[in-house]
């Protein structure tokens, strides 16, 4: 089975994240780049499926030069090879542009199964899996907390507000995963050493048949008009218990319509 995992490099959520004033895109140099957290779960799931069913795991990441660190981590976890979609023309692509570029790369790589995180921690649109599935003409199985494969059938448990739905489709398919699905492994020393020898192919837009007029900031359908720093959090309400603390806490919750 040929599994491709889409991995995004995002700024570390523990550091201060900024937009660049000149073109209103994320300042990716200002913060340490890390693997988008849910994408580690996606890599783990791909590795487990490979361990159970055989095949190969390819990592695909679209991003600037420093996204290689992220690719290396996924390889150190155990993925077999990687494709780095890297071209200045891709800078500033919105979700539509990104999904187009990534889908073109996926067509070039070929796949039985594409696994994504269900959401990134920077843009957080959560749209990529659905857009990719549409562009690839493959079924989408999003928000998966469990994945099972039998022959060409794929079954997932898709989390909902109340529990989960059982969804079934046939391969090739696009899956996005949630945190509940597994416990991602940490790269071992052997994995780190092995990653050095694994092939990483870099594709520019021409290599992946990506039309220049469909990607990049200038061709984005969405536009950031303005931005401002988030206002500091207002101080919370402190209720000091003077015998009536319980009642006053209940009153507060009722006023916010929580109870």
């Amino acid at each position: 089975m040929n599994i491709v995992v889409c991995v995004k490099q995002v700024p570390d959520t523990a550091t201060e994240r900024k937009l660049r004033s000149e073109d209103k895109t994320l300042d990716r140099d200002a913060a340490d780049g890390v693997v988008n957290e849910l994408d580690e779960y996606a890599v783990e799931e791909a590795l487990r499926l490979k361990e159970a069913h055989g095949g190969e795991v390819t990592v695909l990441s679209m991003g600037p030069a420093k996204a290689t660190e992220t690719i290396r981590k996924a390889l150190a976890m155990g993925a077999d090879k990687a494709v780095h979609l890297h071209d200045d023309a891709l800078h500033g692509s919105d979700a539509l542009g990104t999904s187009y570029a990534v889908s073109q790369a996926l067509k070039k790589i070929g796949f039985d199964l594409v696994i994504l995180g269900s959401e990134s921690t920077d843009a957080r649109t959560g749209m990529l899996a659905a857009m990719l599935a549409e562009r690839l003409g493959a079924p989408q199985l999003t928000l998966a907390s469990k994945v099972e494969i039998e022959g060409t059938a794929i079954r997932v448990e898709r989390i909902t507000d109340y529990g989960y739905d059982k969804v079934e489709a046939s391969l090739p398919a696009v899956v996005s995963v949630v945190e509940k699905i597994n416990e991602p492994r940490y790269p071992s020393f052997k994995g780190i050493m092995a990653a050095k020898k694994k092939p990483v192919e870099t594709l520019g837009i021409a290599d992946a048949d990506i039309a220049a007029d469909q990607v990049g900031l200038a061709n984005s359908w969405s536009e950031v008009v303005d931005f401002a720093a988030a206002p500091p959090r207002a101080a919370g309400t402190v209720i000091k218990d003077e015998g009536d603390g319980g009642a006053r806490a209940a009153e507060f919750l009722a006023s916010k319509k929580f109870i």
Partner: protein
Amino acid sequence: MLNDEHVELRKSVEEFAREVVAPVIGDYYERCEFPYDVVRRMGAMGLFGLPVPEEYGGMGGDYFALCLALEELARVDSSVAITLEAAVSLGAMPILRYGTDEQKRRWLPGMAAGEILGAFGLTEPGGGSDVAGGMRTTAALDGGEWVINGSKAFITNSGTDITGVVAVAAITGRREDGRPEISTILVPSGTPGMTVSKKYSKVGWSASDTRELSFTDCRVPEENILGERGRGYAQFLQTLDEGRVAIAAVSVGLAQGCVDESLRYARERRAFGQEIGCYQAIQFKIVDMEARAHTARLAYYHAAERMVAGLPFKKEAAIAKLVASNAAMDNARDATQVFGGYGFMNEFPVGRFYRDAKILEIGEGTSEVQRMLIARELGLPT
């Protein structure tokens, strides 16, 4: 000094310590409970196999890699760090260095995976520094079996549910010069005649396993001897030389953990209208802490580098252990001071660091013993 793989390994362990160890270890510590689940995950990421060759199920790394992992773990918690240190440098390494191929195949794969822990029983109730002079444990051959009698004190990892084997140093005869002949014998857990006492109540390292062992006509097959008969003394001297570098790494981790915690707290805590980090008295404490951690790190890097290169490193190891354990102790005291009353509370990591620091100046050779070794290396008269 570090190559790319070492840097990446350190980062991987740093993340592990922050994400997996830090959130849960305080509770284990408070309950004096061995953290099986954390140890299982350390095993899954290959930490117990770092210096073990791949043919025995290890990671094919070196002792330097082990030290880096120990430092990053100890930045967050010393109990898990010492569990790893004892399992690898005292448990697995002697088998790797002196064992027969069969012994290696029997024990190392499980140890490298962290599925079984090894322990090294050297110290006795009668003495740890003068370990040869104080040794009373004996092993005598009888019908193709070693019959062991005696007891061992303070043995790390000797009584967990996953302890697989204890290497026991014992007197197996008299040498021609009249001194005891010491050999090392592998005793699998559960061997009749070996009694594992209940855990000690310790000042620190509370989530690690330390026990007294006693042997009453405990019989193991003759082939359980580790390496040659009579080589026990030389074996444990070499094991301890290496172990000192590892303990130095644990000490540096603790010393650095004190800096990490103090930096954060000095920015957060306010007194007399500003953050306490604005006061030079606090700044200089933290600066001194950083300087100690930094210089101690250079000392253990140097010793580890020589060890890995096959150069003599006895003096460097003793210096690293002496300096680093001292740094850990000083930093723990200063960090606790930076935290004020909260530093005395068990729920804050610095409280744990304070309790964990002292043993570093005692275990695997006290600071006095390190000075004796260095004096000898300097050629001072004895």
